[in-house]
């Protein structure tokens, strides 16, 4: 429906008083790609999105869209659709008029506006509600209308600023999948800002993890999860056990096993970041570790074991497998031979 364009954020810096919200932030988004910016509160992800939208000005750096520098182009001339964290439908307009608003601003005739708005509402499955007002819709419906409204103008770039954070868990998961479906259908280059790692990993082609105004790592979700480039990424994305380890010759030795050490690992002694799903626990009457507790999480369970040195390690496994363990059972703890990042302790 729309042809995506490349987006380039170059060396952006944004200073608020004494706070540096962005510090030399650069990001390249391929045409039609969905990139998620992930990070804790205050990391600068929303600032980056707002600068791209033209709603905030960078202290330094440039923004280019489709090869054209738009740093000095006002927000209303940037041709970008945006869905906000807060419900942003115009309360005095019906759903149909909300979706048609952007087209009206473009000077499209009424018949074209109406037909396009209905098409967009069909896309998000809400055409039956076209004559309702925002106050008559649920939160999830309002955000779907906001998505339809943002896409109605056929924007060159779609910006999603934590659009799901005000919704409850079930609606959030549904809408998350819907956003991805619609984005793939229209092919618009999209920047999705979120603090929810599950959300980012589920919808994005690539995920950028941010910390203190800088991009720590930009990679495909699976790659980011399996090969964190920095201790911050390893810590922020997914759960981790910190296990003492020793690196030499590109391999890390921990829990009596030798596994590949990821690029960026320290040489010598350090702390290995081990995912709970990489930890193996086997019942062993002669084992030196003991089960301390088992947490049931539905299809999976988390099993906690106390090691010989007194530290506790968590392992994630199918609940059917975890049933075999009870607190106090002697076990042997190991690690699957996947790569681990070893950081200095």
């Amino acid at each position, binding site marked *: 429906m729309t042809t995506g364009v490349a987006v380039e954020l170059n060396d952006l810096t944004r200073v608020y008083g004494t706070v540096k919200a962005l510090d030399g932030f650069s990001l390249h988004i391929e045409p039609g790609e969905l990139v998620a910016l992930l990070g804790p509160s205050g990391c600068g992800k*929303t600032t980056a999105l707002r600068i791209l939208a033209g709603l905030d000005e960078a202290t330094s750096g440039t923004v280019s869209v489709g090869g054209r520098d738009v740093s000095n182009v006002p927000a209303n001339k*940037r041709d970008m*659709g945006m869905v906000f964290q807060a419900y*942003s439908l115009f*309360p005095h307009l019906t759903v149909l008029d909300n979706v048609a608003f952007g087209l009206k601003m473009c000077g499209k005739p009424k018949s074209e506006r109406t037909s396009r708005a209905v098409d967009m509402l069909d896309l998000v499955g809400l055409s039956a509600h076209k004559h309702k007002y925002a106050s008559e819709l649920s939160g999830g419906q309002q955000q779907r209308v906001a998505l339809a409204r943002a896409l109605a103008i056929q924007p060159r770039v779609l910006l999603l600023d934590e659009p799901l954070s005000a919704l409850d868990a079930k609606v959030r998961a549904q809408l998350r999948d819907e956003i991805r479906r619609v984005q793939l259908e229209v092919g618009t280059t999209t920047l999705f800002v979120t603090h929810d790692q599950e959300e980012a990993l589920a919808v994005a082609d690539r995920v950028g993890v941010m910390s203190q105004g800088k991009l720590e790592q930009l990679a495909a979700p699976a790659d980011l999860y399996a090969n964190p480039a920095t201790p911050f990424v390893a810590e922020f994305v997914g759960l981790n056990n910190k296990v003492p380890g020793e690196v030499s010759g590109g391999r890390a030795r921990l829990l009596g096993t030798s596994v590949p050490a990821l690029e960026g690992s320290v040489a010598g002694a350090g702390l290995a970041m081990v995912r709970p799903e990489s930890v193996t626990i086997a019942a062993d009457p002669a084992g030196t570790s003991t089960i301390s507790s088992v947490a049931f999480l539905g299809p999976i369970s988390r099993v906690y074991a106390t090691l010989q040195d007194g530290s506790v390690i968590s392992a994630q496994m199918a609940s059917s497998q975890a049933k075999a363990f009870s607190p106090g059972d002697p076990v042997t703890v190991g690690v699957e031979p996947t790569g681990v990042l070893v950081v200095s302790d």
Partner: protein
Amino acid sequence: MVAVKHTTLGGKAFRAVLWVAFALFFLFPLYAMADFSTRNLLAGGRTMAAWQNLVADDALYQSIVISLLLAVFTVVAMLLLLVPTMIWVRLRTPWAKGTVEFLCLLPLTIPALVIVVGLRNVYLWVTYFLGESALTLTFVYVVLVLPFAYRAIDAALSSIDLQTLAEAARSLGAGWPTTILRVVVPNIWSGILSAAFISIAVVLGEFTIASLSGFQTLQVQIVQIGKTDGPTSVAASLAVLLFGFVLLLLLSLLTRSRRRAPALEAAAPIPTGVPE
């Protein structure tokens, strides 16, 4: 069920008594005014002469026109000054909000007499450039209605997520004038109407400044006529009161027809401030 019915009946009776008491309290003076203004004091019986004087007496008629024009000009000038300023302050210069609020509320604390004395020198220039028309009182009245209008518009702006609505409109291609006129104003319409009607009421009730400045507004005329022709003066006062009632009724009807619970109020408030 019976107990509930008794409570409902008791509540209804209590409400009816309250209605009657309030109606008597407020309507009796109005009835007395209507009675007095239609009484033929010399020959006895009833006459509409006092009411006919409202249009037949040229000076009184002129003062009514001037007061109505003053009300219209004041409202227009106040809205043109205040609405964009308040929106801009909230969106772009929130640090100036305290100063603007202080300046707008300041006229409440200054006695009318002090304002007249203070404005005398300013008005030398105003009359030099614009002539000695009573309509130049618009400038003073705009200042005078600021505290009331500010409060009404501020309350309306606080009830919407102004920043998000404005940013949504801008991202959809709307320029600033379109954003203000097509998105913000319709959502603060009740506040704008309140500000306008309160301003009209203030202008139509203002006597001190007009009198001390020597301008013949309706209130000044009513006082002057009252010295020689009681019924006409009371008829004019009653007409102003009825006009005010009609305005309030209109306000109530207009705001009711436009009252749609904004989605933003229903949503969980999301704190704004320095973005992440």
